[in-house]
């Protein structure tokens, strides 16, 4: 096993092959590469930091467990987000997601600016949270995770046209909910 620095040049697929052999440096590299994306996917989906952290951890555990069976048939990112999608759509149903206030603050803002920004942010978060599950997930994957429409369709195991429909409905709802902020 080498240092984690050596692993930075490796592709996700190469790391998965190493993880299948229980190489923890490969796990560490994969976690540091994808934790931010997953954490923010879950955070935007649930609006709850602690829950988002637990769910991110759950995804990495699943990645580790399924590494010996992993086959690079599609982009690793698509495979990873598909696991996250299953967590979002199947396992969160039983949980009641409580409304949480955003925790991040920008240091350079005056208290008044900070308050206005925080209020806008709460509104945006609440509007996203109000969307039906599949619309919300499609929107987050497209807007925040940088996935293309085709990749989003692959993650959600549907067609590109279906994603287009989900996004159109999500945006119509958001436009209506956030109309005053857009002026």
């Amino acid at each position, binding site marked *: 096993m080498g240092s984690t620095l050596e692993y930075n040049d490796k592709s996700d697929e190469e790391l998965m092959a190493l993880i299948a052999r*229980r190489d*923890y440096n490969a*796990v*560490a590299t994969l*976690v*540091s590469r994808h*934790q*931010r994306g997953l*954490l*923010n996917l879950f*955070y*935007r989906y649930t609006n709850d*930091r602690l829950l*988002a*952290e637990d769910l*991110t*951890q759950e995804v*990495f*555990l699943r990645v*580790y*467990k399924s590494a010996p069976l992993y086959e690079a048939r599609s982009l690793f990112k698509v495979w990873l987000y598909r696991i996250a999608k299953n967590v979002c759509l199947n396992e969160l149903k039983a949980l009641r997601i409580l409304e949480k206030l*955003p*925790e*991040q603050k920008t240091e350079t803002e005056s208290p008044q600016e900070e308050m206005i*920004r925080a209020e*806008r*942010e709460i509104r*945006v*978060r609440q509007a*996203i949270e109000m969307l039906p599950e599949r619309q919300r997930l499609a*929107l987050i994957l497209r*807007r*925040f995770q*940088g996935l293309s*429409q085709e990749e989003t369709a692959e993650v959600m195991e549907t067609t590109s046209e279906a994603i*287009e429909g989900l996004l159109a409905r999500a*945006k119509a709802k*958001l*436009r209506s909910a*956030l109309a005053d*902020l*857009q002026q």
Partner: protein
Amino acid sequence: MECKKARTMIEACRKDREFAAHLEVCADCRGELALWDLLGEAQGLEPGLEFTERVLEKVKEEGRQTSWRDIKDMLGRCFIWSGTLDEFSDFPPDSFGAVLFGSRRD
């Protein structure tokens, strides 16, 4: 450029000249881009070092449990095999021999 294309490529096209030209004449797509930007106000989180370490520790714990499960499975299989071999240790059973060769008591 059509609206449909512009909207599917809204992020990638942001600096694209054709897209910029389309925006100038299309209020709908300008609204689309404004909404896209507004959503960006829902800021993300930065995972702390502590979180990363917690995830890695959990994965290692899972690895240890998996190894122990593997050993238990292997031992379980060994016991099953040894039990099966025991069944054959008195082969052929008396009754089997009696059927084949008949009972010879004389």
